[in-house]
């Protein structure tokens, strides 16, 4: 299983047990808090990504999407993780911190929500972009050359002189390009983007997304996009996984999800998105709020807010089953009886 001789050159040549899979998360469960008062933030989450795949992880705040992303990178040492996270043939949850350091930023890059707070205010842009390379022993001259080229690729003008500048001299959109450059410089095979455009204004959002789209296509990068913004999802990804209260409740291709959403929660989310091409008297919202992880209702966690909830929903938590649209869904509406009242 553990192949620890992954130099960048070998990356493509080396074969994984299942060449079709880049990342395979199986039953990832994340718990926080003390042993006495344990909170299950994420419950048996599974997800597969092939090289070059673009998957969106969607959900409200507190649904566990960011926690999941951070758990893949093992960024929160206080969380207890179980399950497996197979990445390029090694289980990341079994690596020690030192081995994990070699994965972070080198094989998996990460982009964060708040570009204003994402950079060290005391280091020059160049130093920060070069850092992943410098850590792995690349010479200064070579690091500078690659930093310049990746910044140029991301549309930073005068990259060479801008590398000497400090973060406070950059705008939000420019900083996000720098954050992206830091994630890309080591030529990873997967980028995890945690709400990369949420903190930016709309025009800059568009620019950053277009850029991510272009760069990931050119490099054949797999992207896991964490967002609560379905608008972002539509233009950018191939597949969507919807999380609710720590569980994956729905997963489908973008087209299927938008045209024929399976889970009532997904339907609700879509109705809450303003559309240019449709005139609705009033934008629909999902009544209520997601439950606190310490206080989940018995049965389906969405049942108190679900317009289609029936007796079974209040008692039994639904398992993931194949959905009519070719994805998976965790909803009793798609039980053995094959009822489909959803759409």
């Amino acid at each position, binding site marked *: 299983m553990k192949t620890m001789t992954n130099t960048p050159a070998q990356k493509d040549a080396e074969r994984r047990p299942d060449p079709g899979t880049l990342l395979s998360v199986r039953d990832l469960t994340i718990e926080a808090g003390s042993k006495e008062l344990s909170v299950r933030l994420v419950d048996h989450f599974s997800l597969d990504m092939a090289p070059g795949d673009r998957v969106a992880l969607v959900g409200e705040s507190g649904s566990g999407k960011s926690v999941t992303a*951070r758990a893949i*990178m093992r*960024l929160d040492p206080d969380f207890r993780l179980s399950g497996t996270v197979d990445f390029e043939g090694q289980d990341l949850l079994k690596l020690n*911190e*030192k081995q994990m*350091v*070699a*994965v*972070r*930023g*080198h094989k998996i*890059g*990460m982009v*964060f929500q*708040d570009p204003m*707070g*994402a*950079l*060290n*205010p*005391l*280091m020059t842009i160049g130093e920060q972009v070069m*850092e*992943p390379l410098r*850590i*792995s022993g690349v010479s200064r001259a070579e690091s500078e050359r690659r930093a310049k080229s990746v910044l140029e690729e991301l549309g930073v003008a005068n990259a060479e*002189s*801008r590398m000497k*500048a*400090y973060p*406070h*001299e950059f705008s939000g959109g420019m900083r996000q390009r720098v*954050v992206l450059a*830091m*994630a890309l410089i*080591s030529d990873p095979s997967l980028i995890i983007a945690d709400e990369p455009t949420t903190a930016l204004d709309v025009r800059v959002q568009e620019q950053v997304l277009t850029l991510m789209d272009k760069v990931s296509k050119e490099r054949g990068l797999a992207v896991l996009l964490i967002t609560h913004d379905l608008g972002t999802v539509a233009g950018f990804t191939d597949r969507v996984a919807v999380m609710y209260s720590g569980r994956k409740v729905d997963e489908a291709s973008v087209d299927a999800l938008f045209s024929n959403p399976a889970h009532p929660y997904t339907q609700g989310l879509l109705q809450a998105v303003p559309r240019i091409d449709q005139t609705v008297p009033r934008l629909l919202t999902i009544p209520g709020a997601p439950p606190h992880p310490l206080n989940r209702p018995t049965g389906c966690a969405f049942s108190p807010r679900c317009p289609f909830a029936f007796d079974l929903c209040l008692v039994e938590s639904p398992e993931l089953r194949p959905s009519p649209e070719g994805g998976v869904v965790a909803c009793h509406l798609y039980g053995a009886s094959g009822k489909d009242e959803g759409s």
Partner: protein
Amino acid sequence: MTTVANNPKQQTAVFLLRKAASSFITLVGLSAFVFMMVKLIPGDEARVAAGENASVEQVEAIRHSLGFDQPVPVQFVAFIGRLLHGDLGTSITTHVSVTQGIQQVLPQTIELVLLAVLIVVTVVVPLATVSALHRDGKIDYTFKILVIVSAGLPTFWLALLLQYGLGTKAQLFPISGRLSRNMHVPTRTGSVVLDSLLAGNPLAAWDGLQHLILPAVVLALPFGAQLYRMLRAELIQVLAREHLTVARAKGVPQRQLVMQHVLPNSIGPSITLVGIQFGAMVGAAVLVESVFGLVGIGSYLTNAVSQKDTFAVLGGVLVIGALVVVSNFVVDILQLVRDPRLRAGQLGA
């Protein structure tokens, strides 16, 4: 776009000049204040200068010769006038020039305080860092308790304890004095360690340093505790910042994370605190110096105050004030070196 400074050197010069001017004003204000305070302390300076057995006529004669019969503002102007010539006046009790008197003792205090600052910084920074990284863990609690207890010990008692334990019992350090009896070093700068080195006598320098270690430790403890608490709190705040998660996600290993991302972002308030502590230590050195049989500006000032030696007090306070001003100046420079945002604000760079 980057606003590249038209002339960074010029801007730095302007900044330094501005700082120097404000330092000068601070010193003038300080001397006026101290001058007033001395005048307000009850007691007759002329009587002290003349001696207990002097007649009324003799006292008046001395009062006239020292200018104490002039109105206070006139006395102050005369004092400032002499000050500009580097003349701090003559001590009315020892009849030695105050400048000379201070020159003899100040370097020894500075030696002591610098060593104490060095101890504070080299011990506290790693301690606070480990504490913050293991927040609320066993190590953190142990350090916390250790720091609080050591800072809570009264200086004189702690001094005696160390003298007994490390001096008498363990024979690790000399108990008292500035240099062993068999050592002789010609005085040049006044700093024993420096003079020994200048005289090409490293043995004497080492001996002088050993004499300083216990007093410096005693002096350092309460200040170290202060710094520990502040730095630990600041570190914990910085550790929660987003850019540290980003740095970790980039694959920055723990050690480099601490050295390049956490510490530089945390030490700002600590630099300011150490700057303030430097001045406070000069004052706090009095007690330590008396316990360990050292001379210094502290003992000089204490004597001067108790004898109502106007010029000696003024001189001593001014010199300490100047030290504080200088340390603040150094602090400002260090902060500018540390933080590019400050450079941009202050220098327009």
